[in-house]
């Protein structure tokens, strides 16, 4: 396979004295969707923040398209083509959808490109076009998530970091958003790194996956390999092991093989 577009090597990140990422190395190849799975507190969001420059790593390197970007200011990282769609959407509630989208294109001065991107967003999310002059705060959760993704697309990114796009959404909406993400990947060849709690949705969309636990990667492989793993099935996909009794409550220990 070609050289990965995003290469993370031995990253360590801290919150004060607390080590949140304890040496993570991973690769994202162009055009692929890579999913990071893990329980609360595993360090998934911290990893995203470290890539997008919101946090600086204590150790390790992040190479994007051949350039080291670890410790860069967030706006420099965006200019390189990395866009972070944060957890919990974080749209500007008092600005209209149009204004929110324009802010997404803040780094660009090419008017034609901006309008082209806006059309692209409206193409994927027609509902945003319908409500383009409405304040973002009045949108539903699913629509806000669409807006957050659309705002990210406005920067014309080479890779999107999506932090829990399914958070707080109904199953139907999750399906809808993931279908759009799949189309974006297939039609625009958009590279994505996806952090998810909803493992089954994430693994259906992703090509590759990594599993994080307490700041470390414990397992990696293609999405098919991960889905076939007993550990993933039991602990992330909610498959109930065959037991002697109904109502079995204990789970066997994870082995990550």
């Amino acid at each position: 396979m070609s050289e990965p577009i995003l290469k993370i090597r031995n990253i360590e990140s801290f919150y004060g004295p607390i080590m949140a990422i304890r040496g993570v190395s991973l690769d994202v190849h162009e055009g692929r969707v890579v999913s990071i799975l893990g329980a609360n507190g595993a360090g998934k969001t911290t990893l995203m923040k470290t890539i997008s420059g919101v946090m600086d790593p204590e150790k390790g390197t992040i190479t994007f398209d051949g350039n080291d970007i670890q410790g860069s200011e967030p706006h420099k990282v965006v200019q390189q083509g990395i866009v972070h769609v944060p957890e919990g959407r974080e749209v500007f509630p008092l600005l209209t959808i149009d204004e929110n989208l324009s802010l997404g294109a803040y780094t660009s001065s090419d008017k034609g490109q901006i309008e082209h991107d806006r059309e692209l967003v409206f193409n994927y999310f027609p509902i945003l076009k319908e409500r383009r002059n409405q304040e973002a705060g009045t949108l539903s959760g699913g629509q806000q998530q669409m807006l957050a993704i659309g705002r990210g697309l406005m920067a014309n990114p080479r890779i999107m970091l999506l932090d829990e796009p399914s958070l707080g959404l109904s199953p139907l909406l999750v399906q809808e958003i993931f279908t759009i993400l799949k189309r974006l990947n297939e039609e625009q060849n958009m590279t994505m790194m996806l952090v998810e709690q909803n493992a089954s949705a994430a693994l259906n969309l992703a090509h590759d996956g990594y599993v994080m636990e307490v700041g470390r990667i414990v397992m990696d492989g293609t999405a098919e390999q991960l889905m076939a793993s007993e550990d993933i099935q039991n602990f992330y996909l909610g498959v109930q092991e065959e037991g002697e009794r109904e109502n079995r409550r204990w789970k066997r220990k994870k082995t990550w093989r």
Partner: protein
Amino acid sequence: MDATTLPAQTVINGVSFNSTPGQRPVKVDGTQTIVSLFKKRCAELGDRTAHREKDFGIWKTYSWADYWTRAKWIGLALRKLGLQRGEVVSILSEDRKEWAYADLGIQCVGGIASGVYTTDSASQLAYLINDSDSRFLIVENEEQLDKYLQIEAQVPGLLNVIILEDEGLHDLDHARCMLIDDLYKIGQQAEKDEPTVFEAEIEKAQPQDIGLLIYTSGTTGMPKGAMLSQENVMAGIEAGAHRLPVEETDEQLCFLPLCHILERNVSIYFPLACKATVNFAESPETVFANLQEVSPATFVAVPRVWEKIYSQVLILTQDATPAGRAAFGMALKVGFERAEYLLNNKPVPAGVAAKFWLWDRLVLRNLRRMLGMDNMRRGGSGAAPISPELLKWYWAIGVPLLEGWGMTETSGLGSINTFEENKIGTIGKPVPGYEIRIADDGEIQTKGLNNFKGYWRNNEKTAETFTDDGWLRTGDIGEIDADGYLKITGRLKDIIITAGGKNITPAEIESRLKFSHYVSDAVIIGDRRKYLTSLIMIDQENVEKYAQDRKVPFSNFASLCAAQEIKDLIAEEVNAVNKEFARVEQIKDFRLIDVLLTAEDEELTATMKLKRSYVEKAHAHLIDDMY
């Protein structure tokens, strides 16, 4: 019994023992069986704390009186349900107070207690139940219960299963299963019906009665049940009291499996004599936190645990401030200087003692408090060889750590170092009253009251284990030096004969490898082969730290093992070990085991040692790759 025929008595920490150890009758405070000692203690100590257990985050105390009544109810109830004297009850549970209650309760009514490791699979459980012909099975919780339910049809001889934790089992309706509270109720009723029968059963116990069955980990073939008599354990208690004195105010932490003779002695039988308080760790994962909370006076662990604590301190110091690091370095230097005197049984010069006092106040004392070792009078290490450097390091930080040796067949304690007689790198002198000799083929053989009674229903194996003149063949090879200290060099049956006809004891090379912080365990291969090779299991934590510090990228355990830098690191360790051995004994090649093994895996024993035969089978492809 006529008091005038008693052997002369000596009092150790308030408990009387025979003045000459190793002689019949073995007496502890005037009693000759575990169960009568138990009865005496509970009556004397009553409301004093025997056990502590953490319940929803709070340490709760349980008295000797609780110990007595629960053991009584368990014993009487099992008897009521059909347990005959000389029949076996299996216990499948992590360490907890009920383990001790059941152990004593079973033995008081003449039953035999047999522990099963919680990491054993359902099929292993079936084998153990059938081999021991168990009448009852005590399981900890629903997870362990499910193992029984899987093999229910294969164990027709089992009368009942008793469950200790009812969580998740409220709707369980099974003819043979009952909760511990129901068992207690049966016991209470039985006590009402026949108030003196429990004491009468205790009176019936004879020193030669079998009290416990301990299945040996069985690195080859199926596990065998070693039978230990009441007298065997009493002899162990006697030896322990002479060599490992414990005071009645001492706190202990119980965390190694109670199925293993080491923890069973230290946490159940020795406290019957010495009256110390036993604290049960919440789970194997929380041992270090529990250690801090309990801060025990004596602490017995396997080398792996001592190694882990050391690694944690090492990692902490590496991440400390430069000033902190320097201070720790200075303190450690003085500590080593002092340890050198202590370990050679020489008085510490006043200057060194003063320096140590200062650094102890400034640094080491805090470190010990952080580790939960501030009250520790004595640490013990056994069940596997420990690195001499590691032993010295503990002495340097002010934790006196002594190495001992024993096996199931010697009732746990065979020889041990003491403060007065300590030689690092040896396993000390034989315990008092116990004889040890080296046979012509180098095998260590022992004689004394600690020697077990034989293997359960396996006369053939029992006969193989004893020599014609009645000495126990330990299967270990070793030597006794001029000062009388015993040293183990290998296992007899593990001897490798290379294609060149050279006899090699792999254990010696393996333990040298294990002394490396990066190697967790190793197996030497080479029987009937041209040269020696090794399969190595790396220490995950330390190697990950190494990789991280040197920017070696890795994602999971397999990729860590595959990294060239890690292979180079282990190669360096192997080369260092090779230098200490003759050419034919050198390791020509090695492979890393790239799966993270857990105690559930067949390749590991419950004390996390690699099992040679299983490892050779499971990783045959790696071995073939080297030849």
